């Protein structure tokens, strides 16, 4: 497979997953804020931190704007300068998809293209204005359709492995950051109020689509430790960090089999498998609250590092710097 093409596959997966996660976090936070148990900035600032957008947001709107839900939602949904906004993520997913149009099934391409057309049309603006939950839900519906169709209508070959690798690494990072930010907020601010605290943990579960799976799994009491264990380590939950890292490792092992040392990709594979092995034997201590933060920092740093090494080893050169035009005459 062409390295540049692998890069487009990887990033299409990441951007689709990024849009989906951002929509999920925005929707869950919207619900949490409506309960009115927490001060507004304690709801909305974590959204910016999870997306890695706090510094840029502060610079443009000031720290106090992080407590204004409409400003934050607008920034995360529509802002053209925000690389993590839904608009930009979907646009970038489509740009990558267009570059590998020849590899995608017509169904996947149409689903990506329709998402882009919808988000750029008036219908999406109207839905955003009138039915915010409906808007976030529809965006997720679109992105889930893309990923579902990729599995059911495309050849299960390296192209799909790279898409999946991008999706899983992106997802592992989001789950870890969502957990870390809120956990951090709980620790530093201390709620002391049982209802507010439970509400926050449920919002975190919802932000990761883990609410019903968590309850079904029968963890009983909703405690910080139980939620953290579930989102970080539950091997049967497809958005837990352990599940995502294991899945990513499996896909990379298909792309670059562990015993084939003559092929490029050895360093990324080793690093990813090490992270997987570490998560498999990990147990969260019951008492030491700061340990969770350290574990999550480690996860976030390591997944980022794996992506970097992967880029060097397997995904080829950076994309062409400038748009090149007029190379084929109009004839």
């Amino acid at each position, binding site marked *: *497979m062409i*390295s*540049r*093409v692998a890069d487009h596959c990887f990033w299409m997966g990441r951007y689709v997953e990024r849009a989906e996660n951002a929509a999920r976090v925005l929707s869950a936070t919207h619900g949490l804020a409506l309960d009115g148990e927490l001060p507004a900035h304690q709801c909305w600032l974590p959204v910016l931190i999870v997306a890695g957008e706090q510094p840029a947001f502060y610079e443009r709107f000031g720290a106090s704007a992080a407590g204004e839900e409409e400003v934050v939602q607008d920034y995360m949904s529509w802002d053209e300068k925000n690389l993590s906004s839904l608009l930009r993520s979907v646009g970038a997913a489509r740009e990558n998809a267009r570059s590998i149009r020849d590899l995608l099934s*017509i169904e996947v391409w149409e689903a990506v293209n*329709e998402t882009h057309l919808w988000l750029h049309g008036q219908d999406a603006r109207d839905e955003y204005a009138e039915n915010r939950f409906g808007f976030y839900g529809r965006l997720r519906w679109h992105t889930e359709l893309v990923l579902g169709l990729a599995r059911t209508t495309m050849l299960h070959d390296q192209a799909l492995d790279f898409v999946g690798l991008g999706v899983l690494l992106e997802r592992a990072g989001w789950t870890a950051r969502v957990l870390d930010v809120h956990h951090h907020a709980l620790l530093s601010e201390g709620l002391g109020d049982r209802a507010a605290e439970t509400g926050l943990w449920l919002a975190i579960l919802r932000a990761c689509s883990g609410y019903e799976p968590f309850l079904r799994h029968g963890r009983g009491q909703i405690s910080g430790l139980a939620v953290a264990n579930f989102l970080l380590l539950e091997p049967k939950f497809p958005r837990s960090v352990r599940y995502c890292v294991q899945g990513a490792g499996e896909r990379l092992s298909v792309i670059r089999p562990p015993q084939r040392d003559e*092929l490029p990709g050895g360093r990324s594979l080793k690093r990813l498998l090490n992270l997987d092995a570490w998560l498999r034997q990990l147990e969260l201590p019951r008492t030491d609250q700061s340990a969770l933060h350290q574990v999550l920092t480690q996860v976030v740093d390591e997944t980022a590092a794996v992506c970097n090494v992967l880029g060097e080893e397997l995904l080829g050169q950076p994309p062409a710097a400038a748009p090149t035009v007029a190379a084929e005459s*109009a*004839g």
Partner: protein
Amino acid sequence: MSQIAFQSSAVEIAARSVRLFDGYPFLGDTYDELLAPDGAPRPAFHRAMEVIGRKSPDEVRRCQALVDRALLSRGVTFSVYSDSRGTEKIFPFDVLPRMVSAQDWRHIRTGLEQRVRALELFLADVYTSGRIFAENRIPAEVVLASRGYLAQVGGVRPWGGVRIHVAGIDLIRDSAGTWRVLEDNLRTPSGVSYVLENRVMAKRAFPAAFDRARVHPVEDYSARLGDALRSVSPETQAPNVVLLTPGPYNSAFFEHAFLARTMGIDLVQASDLFVDDDRVWLRTTRGPAPVHVIYRRIDDAFLDPEVFRPDSLLGVRGLFRAWQKGNVALANAPGNGIADDKAVYPYVPEMIRFYLSEEPILEQVPTFLCARDDDRAFVIDHLHELVVKAVDEAGGYGMLMGPDSTAEQRDEFRQRIRADPRRYIAQKRIELSSCPTWDGNRGCLVPRRVDLRPYVVSSRSGPWVLPGGLTRVALVEGSYVVNSSQGGGSKDTWVLKV
């Protein structure tokens, strides 16, 4: 007797189906593709026209809206160069098909095969022995002064003897209904993906009429092209064919991706390729893979910075040498620009006589070469009635439409012609044929001028003509320019079976 019976049935059909075509405003002195001057459908098309004619304007409006939405959803777009944000537009598609009778098609097909054969022989001759110059059939200076001439190509004999793997030959029809070749495109002709997409749309819009018409399918184009490309591979066991694109910002990127996808080959950019020891390799996630045939959709000048433009970021260093040594096939071959140069065009009938000892089957458009003193004097005095074109431009750029021009524009062209006569040719303006076209604002059919670009694919065993082609239509009222960059659109082209 049967002829009379046939005609009367056509009249009856016309009487029953007047609704949609009723009051069609014919253009003066212009051949209409679908309707005879008395307003009845042309007899060869009565099967389909009967069904289409029964549609109401509202139904046609709905059909048009349906296909517009589908084209957007499928991303059948072209990029707009001037827009830095990478805006894409759908190529306007007119829902009314253009039809070509079986009899006309036989004439076109044989004429195109003949023409492409002669052009192949001409290219091989110019780049090897130059027999046609030695026998004074074509002046060497006209050909060698072409911007498309590449001295480096001299002496190279490409694999399978093919240089024009894909040709797009533009045809028009004059007021008498005579088919004429307007120009040849022998470098990187584009548009065939729209032929295939338009067919999908036409089947959705007019399924019953399509069924009645009995139309030649076009879907096997990609398979034919793939076979032709593999037939010229230097490696015969497991030839690796790739399509080289300038990238997603190129206006024709949709087509590049479309063709790669439907041929099942890799779509590559120059940065994916490298040359080592005069062989071409593809950078993959499992190391370098050999490449044997490159269907390149970038111009000669951007192929290889070592040989052509050192400033090009698009090319592959060493690619030309790999081709010269016969380690890779390039489709189309470099240097073809001499054969589709507009100043060489008037000599194509002579090539057909010289190489094939046949009379040309297809007519051309009478052309004045400004490089010739007599022609130039005539052109300069008659600019108001001529169409002037720069020999090396395409897409409707660099041209003067004399009858519609201002005195100022004519003065400008007079100066340009005097400064560089070799660069200009002139032709009498042909009243391009019209075809009924949906006008959404008026809610009725109007005559709009069309041309036809059929595609010819040549393999080791000779040329094959796709039964169909891109009908381009000048959507602007009164316009003669069909190019998409100048407000043109397209139609599906139905070549009818016998």
